[in-house]
């Protein structure tokens, strides 16, 4: 395909058949079809943190993703990454700069650690940038509506676009 590029993509766990099945179930079994897949960009970081404990400092590794369109950060479970060839139109453009993404990642991790451990302490967070990765979202539609299905978690969300075209 023209304008194709290699993307680092979080390994898919939901294929199009499973996605369709999920979609039809929540659409009250109305007939639906999969239009395609879009890839959403995230800046990925691996944070090595030193957590103070009674037995000295414990080393903990946390994955963090920063939404490269909206700049929202969140910690994440360990993930497997594949290299996938994708057409240019199938991936969204990253808008958030690296520097900003890094400070967002740092902030999210520090906040999470402080809250979970219930203490105020410097956690010695060392961030390793892992570059841009993408997550695939299946786009499905029925005659009434469109929705997207996260191809790693199966989570769904309605899409308020113009009326879906068959």
């Amino acid at each position, binding site marked *: 395909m023209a304008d194709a590029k290699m993307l680092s993509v979080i390994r898919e766990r939901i294929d199009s058949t499973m996605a369709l099945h999920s979609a039809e179930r*929540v*659409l*009250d079994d109305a007939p639906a079809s999969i239009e395609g897949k*879009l890839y*959403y960009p995230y800046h990925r970081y691996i944070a090595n943190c030193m*957590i*103070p*404990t*009674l*037995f000295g400092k*414990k080393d*903990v*590794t*946390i994955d963090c993703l920063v*939404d490269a*369109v*909206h*700049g*929202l*950060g*969140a*910690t*994440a*479970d360990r993930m497997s990454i594949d290299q996938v060839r994708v057409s240019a*139109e199938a991936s*969204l453009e990253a808008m958030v700069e690296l520097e900003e993404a890094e400070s967002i990642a740092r*902030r*999210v991790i*520090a*906040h*999470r*650690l*402080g809250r*979970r*451990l*219930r*203490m*105020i*302490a*410097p*956690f010695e*967070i060392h961030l390793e940038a892992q570059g841009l990765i993408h*997550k695939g*979202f299946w*786009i499905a539609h029925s005659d*009434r*509506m469109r*929705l*997207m299905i*996260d191809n790693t*978690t199966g*989570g*769904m*969300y*309605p*899409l*308020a*676009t*113009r009326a879906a*075209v068959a």
Partner: protein
Amino acid sequence: MSGTVISFLVLYYVVVLGIGYWAMRRGAGEDLEGYLLGGRQVGPLPTALTLQSTSMSGYMFLGAGGLGFAQGYWALWYAAGDIGGGVLNLSVIGRRMRKLSQIFGALTAIEYLEKRYPSPAIRLFAGILTVFLLGFYVLAQLIAGGKGMALVTGIPYPAALAIAVGIILIYTFMGGYLAVAYTDFFQSLIMLVGVMWIVIAAVSELGGLTAANNAIAELDPTLLSIWGKDLGFQGQWGVVAGALLIFSIGYMGWPHVVTRHMAMTKPATARRAGLWATLWNLFFVPAPYLVGIMAILILPGLDDPEMAIFEVAGKLLPAAVTGLVMAAIMAAIMSTADSLLLQTGSIASRDIYERFINPKASETQMVWVSRGLVFAIAVIGYVVALVEPPTVFGIVIFATSVLGSAFLPAYVCAVWWRKANTPGALASMIAGALVSFVWQYAGLVETTQVHPMLAGVVSSTVTMVIVSLATQKMSPVPPHILDALDASVAVGPIPGRFAEASDLSLANEAAAIEKTLDRGDRHG
């Protein structure tokens, strides 16, 4: 207090530390990471127990008991609202705030307010007010901790207070070392059993509830009325209304409480939590007031009404049980203080220092700002608690009235009213805070017979509505916020089942994907 009590108190802390030690030993590497990621569910019972038991604090054990002792059944006006505070909060704001805060990417409840009502002034005012008032809550816990410690150990109050403050600071600065977070469930369980035991023991001691009430009637029948001792509040519906509102709708104005909505993983959590909250509150909210009322008969010579529950426990429970229960109560108080200080520290460092003073602040700098503030609150709190300790009841009612009045319309309208704009929110916060504060200190309660909470909430709500409507044209709610509100409610004509099945965390991705698809559709 006897040696047995103290021994079991010490034993309790040894067990707690032991649990923490064991949990940490077990929790090497992956387990700790899993815990930090907050991923897998703990289970509804431990979660619910921990959620509810964080409401057990100095107010419950000192304030409520003290009011029951002093005013009899009048005190239950406060309980009447409080029983429903949890479910009300969850049903009105819970899910929507969770979704909206997710879309905004807000980490604190104060940041959330600025995202919804864009303006630095909102964040600054809300941040400073919250830090100031949470400081008062901490003071209440310090007094409760100090008095409790003094009673249990026999150490003079100044030293006991210092010890309580010290332990609270250790919790807050070094909680991670002690795996404080792991032991909450165990502590909640002890407290649950302990409180039930105290109530049952108190009622049994007096031969049952009917016999107790008959005995109170002989002593002073006004203590059984709804108007308080000597019918002091007779006909004062304005005060009654405030008492009802303060712990029912008041919770929706506490930044440190509404922040819990932001941490929910799914709507079903709000539902279950609402059920647990009511079940828990049905017993545990009236219980301390009731024990305070029973104390009128059990401890007629009581000097400090706020010590009613501690003293009843000491008198009626076996020494060993007293030790364990006292320890659990102390732990609850200190844990509450710790939570409040963590929140306060976080607001001070993120919402004030990083936001306004040093945007490039490093994490280390922010930690020092947090710690500095926490230490300052502890020191100031110690001095005030020592020199002129107000009653726990007084402090909590004051702080709740001002917080609730200032923030209730802001948090509720954030998710329910599309026209609630920045000038409206700012004006309502200022009006609510000022009115409730002045009402209290200018002695307007006596002259108007209206509770500061009622006056404050009415002022802030009216202000929100009037100012928002008056300034709609010059300061409309930005479109991206209206979009976020739409997303937080429902999207278009979709099946109800699907609306509720949506993964809340995908809202932002969906917004961007919608735009991309629209562009693609347009280009054919």
